[in-house]
């Protein structure tokens, strides 16, 4: 997913090969990640697709099934990956992810610590932000999930940037080896205040910590714990509102200047020429309109950020 040097940039060589991970785009809310395998097929509502037909085609192309249905094959990005990965836990979505990366001030070369790994949604974006010289150390106390996350990182090709550890950060804190090494720390734990003191040791002075908590009580407790060694403690909520766009023929409320009187009397007195006028007014050219989509996320979690105080 990420180029390692200038010889394999994203813009180069955008042809699908055997073994590649592609994102199969069926519909806006229907995508899946598929590993291309010469002998495999993909079966969905549009028909049967042979992987062998895909090999050698450029990314972004349209491929057809045996019965003429089609899908698009896209190159994977962390954003698309977040939408297709298998949820072992509740994940973070792009609104929170992008805000976190901005506020943690991550750039290539940074070292960031994360707990819990969960399904690796945020982890993949963290890896992108610090690539190729930085690193993400991520911890989860649930072994099978840590293993599944490692497999995902192999699949998406980010494993050289991510180290997954099985560890109970709330109970044991971060490993002593990482003291003073972290530019940023991200916590998504049920009791983050237990991990905050250890996070403070891992961070460089003026380094940024972020804690993601669904409940306000957790936020309050975390903020109290942060007060001793941290400053600039700020809590935010981010959400996205999506709009739908369609062409709409809007009815006009018409009053005829030539024929005064009520709307109804107009209709009743309709003669040939007036009839065509009425229809013309009614069928104006469609205009592109936007309006918010009625379903929206109301809440994901509160994001609390803080900077480690400078003491020297």
């Amino acid at each position, binding site marked *: 997913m990420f180029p390692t040097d200038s010889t394999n940039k994203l813009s180069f060589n955008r042809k699908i090969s055997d073994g590649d991970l592609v994102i199969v785009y069926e519909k806006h809310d229907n995508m899946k990640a598929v590993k291309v395998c010469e002998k495999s097929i993909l079966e969905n509502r549009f028909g049967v697709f042979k992987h062998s037909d895909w090999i050698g085609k450029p990314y972004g192309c349209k491929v057809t099934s045996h019965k003429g249905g089609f899908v698009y094959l896209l190159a994977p990005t962390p954003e698309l990956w977040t939408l297709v990965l298998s949820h072992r836990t509740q994940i973070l979505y792009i609104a929170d992810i*992008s805000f976190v990366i901005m506020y943690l001030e991550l750039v*290539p070369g940074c070292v960031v610590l994360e707990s819990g790994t969960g399904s690796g949604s945020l982890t993949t974006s963290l890896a992108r932000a610090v690539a190729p010289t930085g690193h993400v150390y991520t911890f989860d106390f649930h072994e099978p999930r840590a293993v599944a996350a490692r497999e995902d990182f192999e699949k998406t090709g980010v494993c050289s940037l991510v*180290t997954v550890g099985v560890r109970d950060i709330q109970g044991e804190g971060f490993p002593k080896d990482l003291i003073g*090494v972290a530019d940023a720390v991200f916590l998504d734990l049920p009791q983050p205040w237990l991990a905050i003191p250890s996070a403070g040791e891992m961070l460089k002075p003026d380094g940024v910590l972020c804690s993601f908590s669904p409940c306000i009580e957790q936020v309050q407790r975390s903020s109290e714990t942060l007060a001793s060694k941290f400053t600039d403690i700020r809590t935010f909520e981010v959400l996205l509102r999506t709009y739908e766009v369609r062409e709409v023929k809007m009815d006009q409320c018409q009053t005829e200047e030539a024929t005064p009187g009520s709307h109804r009397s107009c209709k009743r007195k309709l003669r040939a020429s007036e009839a065509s006028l009425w229809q013309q007014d009614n069928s104006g050219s469609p205009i592109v309109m936007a309006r918010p989509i009625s379903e929206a996320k109301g809440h994901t979690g509160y994001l609390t950020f803080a900077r480690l105080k400078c003491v020297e």
Partner: protein
Amino acid sequence: MGNSQAQLQVDCSTLTRLPSESLPLLRRPLCFAAALFQSRATLVRQIEREMSMDDNVNSNQNRRITWEGCSVLLDINDGDRLIFSRLTAGAIVKIGNKNYPLQPLIGCPFGSVFQVENGINGPCLSRAIQANNTEDKKECTLKDESRDNRALIDNNTAQTLTGDDIEGLRRQGASGNEIVEALIANSATFENKTSFSQEKYRLKKQKKYDPKVILRRPFARSICDTYFKKYPARIGFLRVDTLSLLLSFGNVMAQSDVLVVDMIGGLLTGAVAERLGGTGYVCNTYLGDSPHSTEIVRIFNFNDEINRRIVRLPLAELSAPEDVDSKEQSVLQAANSVDNPSDQSHPVSMEETIVSKVHKAAKPGEKAPEDAIKLWRENGFSSLIIAAPDVDAWSIVKEVLPSLSFSAPFVIYHQYLQPLATCMHNLQVEKMAVGLQITEPWLREYQVLPSRTHPHMQMSACGGYILSGTKLYNDSQPDK
């Protein structure tokens, strides 16, 4: 990296706890990871140590200590007043009605706090070590509050100290904190206030008589935040969460070639360059001969490596044949010398001439090198970000989209919804892109204090709109 195997094994076991069955399967990559983990940590610490001794301006962009000539963000009273400044020899900041030289800030870590003092040589800023928060503060807010404000009358007669008294105290050498205490002691109503109210009162007096200056690092986040508060029109009302979405949707990362249309003063260009970290390119394209102003890029404290990656190319040349180039190039080179007249008035230009005596500093925003242009014409850019809040979106998109690689993401920011709706519709009809989506980000900040947790009373109602999508393959551009 020359650590013994024995030590490596120990780290392996403390780091992970796998059941023995799975060990043979995962042991090799695990230990390799642990090796990376252990040696990387020590390596990183080594590098940090070396860097703190390295005075060269050109080192890692992630420097945490200020240097002479660096650009800083001064935060007076925790966000009340934000000023961009440069730590040059004669730089000052005006607080109240006094001028404070910024010289003491050079060589201090970002995040340090300074307080105002009346020194021997006049008003000065001195480093204040941030004390750990006191426990007794917590106590008084936890006990049940029995006071209320029913008897308090707000008629400006409660304070017995006059402005002259305070000046007198100052002349006697009283510190800001002492003046605040004196004000509290001389307030007739202070004791009758609730503890919350007392805290608020103390904070208010501190801000006036004992202001604090926080030395902040200019970064995409702080620069965008500050401009959004002070000069939002200059950045097209692009809020920080919206900017963060542009960078994510735009898949900005090291080694990527990002095409941008930046008509918001260079904020987008700078933010992209920051995430590129000195590799890849951020190429600013524009109609006609003169590029849009990108003065905000200068605030970022970029080193040469990063500055070299910030380039520009007129729209006409994005896909023009080779032979037209040389003529246009000479025209543009002539235009270069009179480029950005704002340079001369900006204090930065003086800095750059001083630095150039030591070594030639790379200027951001030079014309893109020929070899890069050639590669872009062959392969396209890896993503496209447009921030042109006063221009019709579709008219720009249809010109620049052909320069994008297939399956590359693009994202367009606009302050109005309608142009994006039209643009999205056209892209759908022409089948140029897939995964199209218009989103509006929403951001709210909270005050979190014991018994006083609630969202802030004010919030930003609009941070603009974003149209994002992925470019589809089309056979009219078979090369890409």
